[in-house]
């Protein structure tokens, strides 16, 4: 029977439609996934289903029924019975979705207090049961801890516990795994899958097709507030009918996409024709070594006063036109390695040489000169620019430093923009007036301005939607082919690493646990941690 039926749902914010007439239904015991990129309206839809669309919104629907009950007619009081009681809701990133100032147990007990008649002690016991049920070790202890004292995975599990506490018929999960490291991600998906059973239905909201593939019986792909494709998971994944779905699928970087173009586009404007379609790229033989790191180590003084090693004994070398990836989970020391390489952080031990020139003991002038050879691209595309600067000024400054005479700068700036697939029309824009993807292109242009030998890319695509990410990855590849620049490519996303890199270093707790060509590391991982990582990669095959 149908638990949830949605007919022609429309949601407007301040007059502009965010959800534009979508329809779907969820059967008892089944799992439906709403998939889409930023602004597709999937999250708004989810919250509308619990009457929390948000301030300044207008909701309309031909039908909006939950277990035969007309949701459009509910008053606030009635909603309270439904939320948490009959519809459980799991938000993304439990660190911000659990009250950071309250004990985990309290949060769960809250639901029980609201929807059951359990006494105080009964509640306490139930809380422990629930935590155990979602696979939280030492539940008694955990219940008495604060969210920040739990790991990301445990937090997410606790959050799920709050959602299932009152045994609702429907559970809505909004990006339940987004903030999690890949290994944890896998576990949580497993947990969610386990929740699905005869009398409980699941509605998953996600931007990542791969994630839902393991979980959902049916998938609805959303774009700009509409459902563009809707069908059984295996069918949608295997034989996508709508163009957008295809793009989405193609855009996901992974083993099989290596050497192909992710975005539909051909080579970016600057290098028209240099590469197109899915013609396997001609990889230039890696040139001579441009960066060599020898046994670098760095530790930070923690607030507890103890020194905590962020990086230990890390060595690698990077050749011209080569891309070396560093992959690892939170706190594995990726970024610190990057900063040391950039000469922005002094290592405690070891050394980094750029063009055979070590940072250590370099005068500030020489240091500045050397910096031009090694540039950086960050994850946060907005923070990477002085908010007051126009693109012209951003590039102008970079060119000035690289000694380009004033009169040639503008012309050169345009060249750079075209190189990254932008144009003159972007010169006078400010960061806020550009999209995330465009900003990242500008960042790359800036990095290219001094014609460096190396660009350190620190999670360059992590903040971007998959389709945009695809374009940027392609761009990086084009640029490398064009300029022979080498990349030190930092990412937590194995798919991206596999797609973009020649060689990879796998880091864990500040150490390199395995290294080699991506093919070798991914196909025949030796270190157990690497194996675990690889295993955890969501596969694009239906559950």
């Amino acid at each position: 029977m149908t638990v949830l039926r949605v007919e022609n749902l429309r949601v407007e914010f301040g007059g502009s439609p965010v959800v534009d007439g979508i329809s779907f239904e969820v059967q008892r015991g089944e799992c439906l996934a709403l998939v889409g990129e930023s602004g597709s309206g999937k999250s708004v839809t989810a919250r509308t289903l619990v009457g929390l669309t948000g301030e300044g919104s207008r909701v309309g629907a031909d039908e909006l029924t939950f277990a035969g009950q007309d949701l459009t007619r509910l008053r606030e009081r009635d909603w309270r019975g439904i939320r948490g009681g009959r519809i459980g809701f799991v938000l993304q990133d439990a660190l911000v979705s659990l009250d950071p100032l309250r004990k985990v147990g309290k949060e769960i007990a809250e639901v029980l207090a609201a929807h059951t008649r359990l006494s105080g002690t009964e509640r306490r016991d139930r809380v422990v049961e629930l935590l155990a049920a979602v696979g939280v070790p030492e539940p008694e202890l955990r219940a008495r801890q604060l969210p920040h004292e739990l790991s990301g995975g445990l937090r997410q599990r606790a959050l799920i516990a709050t959602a299932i506490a009152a045994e609702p018929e429907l559970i809505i999960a909004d990006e339940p795994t987004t903030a999690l490291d890949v290994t944890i991600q896998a576990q949580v998906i497993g947990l969610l899958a386990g929740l699905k059973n005869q009398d409980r239905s699941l509605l998953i909201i996600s931007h990542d097709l791969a994630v839902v593939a393991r979980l959902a019986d049916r998938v609805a792909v959303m774009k700009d507030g509409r459902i563009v494709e809707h069908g059984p998971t295996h069918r949608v994944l295997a034989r996508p009918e709508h163009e957008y779905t295809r793009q989405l699928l193609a855009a996901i970087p992974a083993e099989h996409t290596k050497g192909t173009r992710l975005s539909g586009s051909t080579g970016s404007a600057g290098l028209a024709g240099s590469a197109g379609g899915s013609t396997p790229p001609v990889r230039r033989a890696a040139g001579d070594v441009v960066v060599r790191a020898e046994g670098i180590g760095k530790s930070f003084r923690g607030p507890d006063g103890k020194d905590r090693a962020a990086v230990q004994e890390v060595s690698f070398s990077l050749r011209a036109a080569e891309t070396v990836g560093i992959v690892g989970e939170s706190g594995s020391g990726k970024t610190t390695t990057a900063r040391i390489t950039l000469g922005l952080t002094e290592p405690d031990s070891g050394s980094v040489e750029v063009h055979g020139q070590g940072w250590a003991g370099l005068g500030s002038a020489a240091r500045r000169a050397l910096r031009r050879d090694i540039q950086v691209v960050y994850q946060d595309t907005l923070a990477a620019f002085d908010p007051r600067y126009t693109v012209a000024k951003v590039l102008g400054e970079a060119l000035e430093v690289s000694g380009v005479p004033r009169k040639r700068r503008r012309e050169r700036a345009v060249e750079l923009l075209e190189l990254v697939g932008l144009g003159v029309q972007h010169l006078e824009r400010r960061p806020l007036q550009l999209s995330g993807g465009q900003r990242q292109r500008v960042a790359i242009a800036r990095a290219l301005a001094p014609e460096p030998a190396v660009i350190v890319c620190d999670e360059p695509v992590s903040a971007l939607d998959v389709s945009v990410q695809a374009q940027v990855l392609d761009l990086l590849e084009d640029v490398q082919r064009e300029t022979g620049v080498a990349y030190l490519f930092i990412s937590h996303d194995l798919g991206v690493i596999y797609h973009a890199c020649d060689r990879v270093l796998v880091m864990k707790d500040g150490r390199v646990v395995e290294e080699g060509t991506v093919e070798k590391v991914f196909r025949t991982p030796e270190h157990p941690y690497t194996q675990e990582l690889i295993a955890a990669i969501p596969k694009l095959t239906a559950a």
Partner: protein
Amino acid sequence: MRNKILRLVGGRLIAGVGVLWGAATLTFLVLYFTPGDQAQAIVGGENAAPTPEVIAQVTAEYGLDQPWYAQYLSHLGRILHGDLGTSYRLHTPVTQAIGEQAGATLELALAAAVVGLTLSTVVALATAKRRRWIRGIASGSELVIASTPSFWLGILLLTVFSFGLRLFPATGSHGLQSLVLPALALALPIAGVLGHVLREALEEVLDEPFIVSARTRGLADLTVRLRHALRHALVPLITMTGYWVGALLGGAVITETLFTRQGIGRLLLSAVNAKDLPVVLGVVLLSAGIYVLLNLVVDLLYLVIDPRLRDAPATARPAVGGAS
């Protein structure tokens, strides 16, 4: 946890001593180099024709003939022994002079603090993220009140409630009745500011995901506000201690003058006018002391309100290691 608190308290106290020393030094220098004959100030106050013997007597008695550093050292020395010297104008020990007045001011300040806090909290809680017109009225009136100088507010209150309606006495420090108007005059402008801060904080918090998830658990709105939102919103509020002490102590000068209440404020004003070095120094030290004390209290409050701070590692340094 305990060590942390001890370390914190210790650090604060050390810093506090520094602040107090600085305060003492600054005032001393400032008032020492102020133009004007202190000996005359001493018999001056309101006085007439002192004979030369009187002047000589005073100069000796107050060590005004000694070099500045001698006077400075003797000041610091006396302060260490809790002796703030003798008032030039009142001819009584400063500690006593202040002691006599402190009670009234404390009473006033506390009353004002309570009124201000409750008022702003209640209003903010009731109006944050409500319908536009409700917030409009609330923040509108806050703006007006916060923009009204306490001395004018005082005049208005006096004229209306005391001279006009004769609801409250206009004067003095006798009992609750006479505390109402001064407390209001002192509290309202502060309440205006705090109310604004608190609502902004509340509205930020009420947009946080964990509030949404609390709602998705079917909690009533009031429960969400009280149990989840308020606690977070309190932090920016207590961060404003400095503003508080200043507003209250500064306001006391005005309010006490306006309502002819006894208190530190009036003591200070007359002392400044008569260049009564010891008294001014005393009051400055007092306010500095209060400031130090309150800061300590606030730091401890932080620990109570935000347990995360108790074991800093988790939150304090997200940048350690490979954060983006």
